[in-house]
């Protein structure tokens, strides 16, 4: 009798697992990080949603041609100024829903931030001089996203390039 119960249990488990995978298109949980190659046109890309005032910043998607960092700059006369925070060393490839970046101060409603990619020079340690910004293949300018902080901002559950 115990074997019969065991057989039934195994069959039900297998069918349920198969059905879950089939009907849900994978084992991904809602809003969880996911990989997507992205409709990008360069080896480096970044996307940041509108942010609410905070001491942290969330990066939705970043793609790196080699290991590097994401830096958050404040605005100085319409251009990237002082560094408010940076990520840990990130691996090459695409990372979704990056861990939030801690900032040195609370951001303000209405201010502009620049979120920029810097590529590591190979030593794995950030150096503002040696770890240069990644350059876009079309514009030959630093790959970055400028955003406006807004008290009305809401974070999406998922993003796809």
């Amino acid at each position: 009798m115990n074997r019969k119960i065991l057989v039934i249990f195994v069959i039900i488990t297998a069918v349920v697992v198969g059905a879950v995978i089939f009907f849900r298109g994978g084992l991904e949980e809602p809003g969880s990080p996911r990989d997507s190659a992205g409709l990008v046109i360069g080896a480096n890309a970044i996307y940041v949603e509108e942010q609410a005032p905070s001491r942290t910043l969330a990066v939705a998607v970043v793609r790196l041609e080699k290991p590097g960092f994401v830096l958050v700059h404040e605005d100085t006369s319409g251009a990237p100024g002082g560094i408010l925070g940076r990520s840990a060393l990130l691996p090459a490839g695409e990372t979704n829903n990056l861990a939030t970046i801690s900032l040195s101060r609370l951001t303000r409603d209405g201010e502009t931030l620049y979120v920029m990619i810097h590529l590591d020079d190979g030593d794995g340690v950030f150096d503002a001089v040696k770890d240069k910004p990644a350059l876009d293949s079309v514009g030959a300018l630093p790959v970055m996203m400028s955003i406006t902080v807004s008290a009305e901002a809401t974070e999406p559950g998922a993003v796809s390039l």
Partner: protein
Amino acid sequence: MIIPLRRLGKFVAVAFLVASAFATIAYASHSWGPYHWARALNPFTLKIGDNVSTVWDSHLVVASTDWSVSSELDTTVVAGQAKANCRPTGGRVEVCNKTYGFNGWLGIASIWVSGSHITQGTVKVNDTYFNNAPYNTSAWRQFVMCQEIGHTFGLDHQDVNFSNANLGTCMDYTSDPDGTINSQLDNQHPNQHDYDQLATIYTHLDSITTIVQTVSNLRGNDNAADADDDTGKVLRKDNKGRPALYERDLGKGEKLFTFIYWVE
């Protein structure tokens, strides 16, 4: 009934083979995780807010028409409600264009979810690149617009290798959107596999809906191509001050009452 251990082993093996077969089929599909709009019946109509400039209007309309071929869903382009930062609107999709800068992406789709249910979505297309060669063509705009809107239904990509031969769908990455460079299939529109995938995603019905049932009365960016919705005057608002009931005078004593169910 006692089942011999050898038969038990075979049974388990068969069961896992069946499960593996299901899994293989699933990974050949291109749904975006479990995400889908909640609705109680099919086909359903999803509003797409037009916040784009005139150069994009025709591409938005074509994409809307293309996706409406699906037997599960229809889309209708309505006046946009997104503001400068392309804010989402509950129960619908807002589509925006802007020079978002040299950030590496042509287009992006974002969805807000409650569990596996999509509650609102946005599409952004990046004019910083579309103002430059080789992306300043109708084919590139149509390809990207089609793909990003497709994501907001819960579809993922069919292929993510730019160098592979075109599959004839906008959900396939390509460097040759209309197929004219390499004499191959046109990737500016969905293909049957996309419609089949939508059928798979939306075969079941939900007990709730996350889709706004009517259009709004707000104008978008004042493009001539933008629809001027006419839902009438607001008769009632909900406890959050949002229009809940419209009355439209159709003439000859006829009136159209439109109820709005707002997504929380």
